[in-house]
């Protein structure tokens, strides 16, 4: 990766003869690139730092390690070997659950060997969509913390269309997807409308709408007609097979067409932002709302439209959950995607392409975390810690630069992503 970039770098203009060689060798250029503040280096270092912090957390809470630490001074090696064991097994399981597992039996099919990757894609699907939702709003200077609520309402709409109606194959899926999209868009647009009409800050309203959506779902799950009849648990009826996103590969692999939908959505968002009138206005409002207003743009309507679109993407994330990964609506259908989506958008720096990569990375974390928890007993909350630390470091490039003595431009401020209360 780095060599390729270095090779593509423009060759320096030939130096005058009397000035001895400023043309550095390729490895010097690589070294210089490695020590500069560019997104790839910063992301890698943030990743490494998060792994280190996570390792400390594992060590401090690991029972064998703490037992060995009681006789640390008589046999310090014990403590270190226990600590190493705890950390390495956890991280190896994280890798095996998300990329490749060498422990599968020799007569397993190729499909089984691909299972970890399939799980990664499966987990990445809603994360990419949620990350796009948050990122799109960031571009307009809005912070949509309400992906959770929008996703829930999307799930309710898509799920209801999926199990209550009887439609032919193909049509049913499209109808359910549109329903989920509309549900999320309505819930997001509500926050945008409130902001444009009353000035209520979207950070507060979207958080509150999350809770409202959560309890609304709880209410629906107690209603006959929504709830599965004959079940004591709060679970909805099962989505009709016509309305499900088709699986992409044979049986053990769970990855479904949602991932294609997510990639398409990323492409559309990319097009929207850079090539369309809506995207231009959206970015203009995000860059400087006063200038945008002076140029004749309707800033208030822009807020509504942005959160409508953002909510629609969140609704699609809900579709992936209810029409693909699961088959029935439950109270915890959100599975923390709303908030992980924020970290995905931050890691992806609100650009659609990078958001896809960030979604894949955090999807891998999520998939590996399940394996890690079941194999080594390390709680899956470690993944949340890793994700938030990565994003924390990425948000502060100045910190990374001073910690690793990187050289770089004097750009110390992070991107203008969200506005303060007066914004």
């Amino acid at each position, binding site marked *: 990766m780095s060599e390729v970039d270095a090779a593509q770098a423009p060759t320096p203009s030939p130096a005058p003869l009397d000035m001895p060689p400023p043309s550095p060798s390729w490895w010097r250029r690589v070294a210089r690139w490695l020590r500069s503040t560019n997104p790839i280096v910063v992301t890698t270092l943030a990743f490494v730092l998060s792994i280190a912090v996570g390792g400390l957390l594992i060590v401090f809470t690991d029972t064998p390690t703490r037992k060995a630490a009681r006789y640390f001074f008589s046999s310090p090696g014990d403590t270190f070997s226990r600590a190493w064991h705890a950390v390495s097994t956890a991280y190896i399981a994280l890798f095996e659950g998300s990329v490749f597992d060498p422990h599968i039996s020799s007569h397993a099919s190729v499909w089984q060997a691909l299972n970890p990757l399939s799980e990664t894609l499966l987990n990445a699907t809603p994360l990419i969509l949620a990350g796009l939702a948050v990122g799109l709003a960031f571009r307009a200077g809005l912070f949509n913390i309400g992906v959770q609520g929008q996703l829930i309402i999307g799930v309710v709409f898509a799920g209801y269309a999926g199990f209550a109606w009887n439609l032919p194959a193909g049509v049913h899926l499209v109808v359910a997807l549109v329903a989920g999209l509309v549900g999320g868009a309505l819930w997001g647009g509500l926050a945008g409308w409130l902001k444009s009409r009353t000035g*209520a800050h979207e950070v507060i309203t979207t958080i509150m709408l999350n809770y409202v959506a959560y309890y609304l779902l709880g209410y629906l799950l107690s209603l006959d007609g929504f709830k599965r009849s004959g079940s004591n648990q709060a679970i909805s009826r099962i989505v009709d097979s016509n309305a499900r996103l088709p699986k992409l590969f044979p049986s053990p692999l769970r990855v479904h067409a949602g991932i294609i939908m997510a990639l398409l959505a990323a492409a559309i968002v990319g097009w929207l932002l850079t090539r369309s009138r809506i995207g231009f206005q959206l970015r203009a409002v995000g860059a400087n709302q006063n200038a945008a207003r002076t140029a004749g743009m309707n800033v208030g309507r822009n807020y509504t439209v942005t959160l409508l679109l953002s909510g629609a993407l969140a609704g699609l994330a809900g579709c992936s959950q209810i029409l693909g990964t699961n088959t029935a609506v439950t109270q915890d259908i959100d599975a923390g995607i709303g908030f992980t989506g924020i970290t995905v958008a931050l890691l992806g720096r609100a650009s659609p392409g990078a958001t896809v990569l960030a979604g894949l990375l955090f999807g891998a974390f999520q998939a590996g975390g399940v394996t890690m928890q079941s194999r080594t007993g390390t709680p899956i909350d470690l993944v949340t810690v890793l994700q938030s630390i990565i994003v924390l470091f990425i948000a*502060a490039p100045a910190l990374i630069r001073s910690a690793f003595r990187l050289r770089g431009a004097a750009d110390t401020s992070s991107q203008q992503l969200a506005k303060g209360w007066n914004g």
Partner: protein
Amino acid sequence: MSALREESAPLVKAPEVVEVPASRNARLVSGSVLIVVGLLCALGLGLGSHAGYDARFGLSPAGAAIKIPALAVPARVAAIVLGALVIVFGVWRIARGFSRKAMRWVVAISIVAVVFSFLCWSCTGSQGTTLDLLGLLRQTIFLAVPLILGALAGVVCERSGVINVAIEGQMLCGAFAGALLGSITDSTAIGIVAALVAGGLIGLLLALFAIRYLVNQVVLGVVINLLALGITGYVYDALMAKDQNTYNTPPGLHAINIPGLSDIPIIGPLLFEQNLIVYAMYVLIVVIDLALFRSKWGLRTRAVGEHPRAADTVGINVRRTRYVNVIVGGVIAGLGGASLTLGSALPFGKNMTNGKGFIALAAVIFGRWSPRGAVGAALLFGFADALQNVLSFIGTPVAIPSNFLAMLPYLATILAVAGLVGRVRAPAADGEPYVGR
């Protein structure tokens, strides 16, 4: 010396503020809302409650020395009269309009009227239902304690110009550290100190990234919340859940009756039979309210939050002021977290703050960044929360699903931020990092 200079009387008398009257359109909208709410109150709650039944409100605790008889109000009459009052407000608003200050009172009185009508209606489900009003208010205080402390944390932090979305994480860490260290040492004192330190550490993290590394503060707050959620959740699963007896049975604070004051009927059992954290909260409310507007620290804090460059010019250390305020805010929020575990002897649970920090943040905004306003808003949200607890016990005339009751505080917050407050003005430099000259 510097305090003298800072507080010397202004030479120029401030010009009288001329208020721009609300536009006709705005009056029409807010007036119609009042009329509709009044109609709903009079017709829905008034006619919806049983004609002959009285709403009875209990006002003294079970074992009180001086018994106060329960207050009995004819429910239907009360709701119709109060509804009519709100309608009159609405008509007056459209016809003549209120000044901005009067409108605030009108809104407050209308809320009280509608809530009281609702309470009247809710105990007419069957003859002789008594709503324990004192219990409701006690629970309001109990539920409002973390909200009030969180809101004070937000005020202290945001008045100095740093947005604090991380109240949730500070409270969660306070609750967590209080439970963990309180359980290990079996000492409430150490538990509380641990909670304060944990809240302060998250405050330090916020301050460091916001002030030194200039990270966007809203985003930063959300990420810190996630980090707090992850770390506490991890340690809970890895340590506390495996051995609840050792690590997660925090000792509870005892209620202390203040001699004399606790014997006053209604107010005594309501305010003066509380635990140490609640008394600390009283002190904090008074101290912060006074200090913010009457002390050197308060003047500097406000100066740094409104116009850091000007503050810098007169020699105030902007960054240090902000560091101090953000960390102090974290400590106060940590105390709020401790009230969840140590204050009620409850074990820590994953994500046990469950949005309380965000509601506290909403209280800061609803209260317009003033300590009094924030406390009032926090009490309102606490009341909404307590109401849903109480209503799930007494049988209302029409059953209200528990999920809708659970939504109340959140809906109240949205209404508060959107409808009642309108466009608020935060401290001018809130969220703006100060880079210096």
